[in-house]
């Protein structure tokens, strides 16, 4: 007899891997799912119904670019009818007044808009696409509709000096929240790690900026800073624990404990088309492999932080050591920590070195892992 794990709060719904942007920091896998293999709207409605029964209260409708799904309204309706709170995670490309009206009519509650830099030309260079103008329009549509707006910027060497400008942009666009998230090195981000790796001084200046803005704005704009875990010697509490808080369903229906976990060997993740979501959450191998603390190696096993950081990130342990069961090398107590620190001393990378995120038709790009 085992006790069922506590239910998940959130579901990350990756509706498509298609995207008009080509950001080299993207955490999507290198092998992007083809559109022909995507779940149908009916599948998603079914996923949300099961997820709500399981305990899910919120979903991020993400991708890729979810607006490329012509049936997004039906998907939003499904979530809303199951009582799940919806947030659209978008680049803004393709959002028109009509589209937003039909989405809010279907029950969309909030929007998170990505931006690559405060300067339009620099933003377009990082996105590999002339995407900035659409973002400005999208922001105005969202706030005009009275929906809460979050701005999300993934940070790296080529935009960390623009933190002040990004906060000013969020204020100008009427956002309620800005998430300044240092790049997590998975998928395309891992492939491009050298070119993205920030400088230590650059990071320190960005932290000073964030603190200054927080003091000055006093909560009128929520500023979320996602620290880069390569620099502080502290492992992040990845996903709030394995199979503990949320789950991800990928465009083809694979259910994962975290969006990057598809790369892990021996996970054997299953598809929502083949198994009930409750069974996947409670009993499947993929969700139990690193759940709790029993799987932990030394030094995690006896560490007083084991219930706070959960041993850090399994995907990062695998990417850096080839062994997903090792302590996250981001932790200063990890035997592999020196190798990780060495990566932060690499020569400054150029923006032009970034491999743009694109569906690959030929051989897969070589990974730096």
């Amino acid at each position: 007899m085992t006790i069922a794990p506590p239910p998940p709060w959130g579901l990350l719904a990756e509706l498509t891997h298609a995207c008009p942007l080509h950001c080299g920091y993207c955490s999507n896998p290198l092998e992007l799912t083809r559109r022909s293999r995507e779940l149908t709207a009916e599948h998603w409605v079914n996923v949300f119904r099961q997820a709500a029964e399981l305990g899910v209260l919120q979903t991020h409708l993400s991708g890729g670019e979810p607006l490329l799904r012509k049936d997004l309204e039906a998907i939003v309706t499904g979530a809303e009818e199951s009582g799940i709170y919806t947030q659209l995670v978008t680049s803004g490309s393709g959002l028109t007044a009509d589209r937003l009206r039909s989405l809010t009519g279907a029950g969309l509650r909030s929007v998170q808009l990505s931006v690559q830099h405060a300067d339009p030309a620099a933003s377009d260079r990082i996105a590999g696409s002339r995407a900035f103008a659409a973002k400005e329009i999208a922001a105005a549509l969202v706030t005009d509709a009275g929906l809460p707006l979050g701005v999300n910027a993934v940070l790296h060497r080529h935009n960390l000096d623009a933190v002040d400008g990004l906060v000013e942009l969020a204020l100008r666009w009427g956002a309620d929240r800005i998430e300044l998230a240092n790049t997590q090195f998975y998928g395309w981000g891992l492939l491009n790690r050298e070119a993205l790796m920030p400088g230590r001084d650059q990071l320190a200046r960005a932290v000073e900026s964030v603190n200054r803005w927080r003091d000055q704005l006093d909560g009128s704009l929520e500023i979320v800073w996602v620290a880069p875990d390569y620099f502080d010697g502290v492992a992040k509490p990845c996903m709030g624990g394995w199979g503990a808080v949320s789950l991800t369903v990928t465009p083809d229906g694979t259910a994962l404990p975290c969006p990057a976990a598809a790369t892990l060997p021996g996970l054997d993740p299953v598809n929502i088309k083949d198994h009930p979501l409750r069974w996947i959450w409670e009993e499947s191998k993929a969700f139990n492999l690193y759940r709790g603390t029993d799987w932990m190696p030394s030094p995690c096993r006896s560490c007083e932080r084991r219930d706070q950081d959960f041993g850090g990130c399994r995907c990062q342990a695998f990417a850096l050591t080839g062994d997903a069961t090792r302590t996250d090398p981001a932790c200063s107590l990890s035997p592999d920590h020196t190798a990780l620190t060495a990566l932060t001393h690499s020569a400054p990378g150029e923006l032009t070195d970034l491999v743009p995120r694109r569906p690959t038709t030929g051989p897969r790009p070589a990974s730096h892992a």
Partner: protein
Amino acid sequence: MTAADPDRWCPRTAPAVLLRHDRARGSHVLLMPERVVVLTGSARHVVELCDGTRTVTRITEELRARFPEAPVDAEVGPFVERMRKEGWIR
């Protein structure tokens, strides 16, 4: 931000904030972007009366009548004020 007048202000939940019953965990919650607030004790009853038609004074009176044993006077005012500062009601 100064405190609102309890005899004039009729609070209602912000458009982005939803009160829901969380069946899986048997509690009431406030849903909003990136956040779930689990309502404990009688907090849910206060939020339910924040419908834009009642003043804070009236909400307090109604709850006092419904829960005569509870410390309604001491708790409702501070809770409403906290929710206002958080932006959950306006």
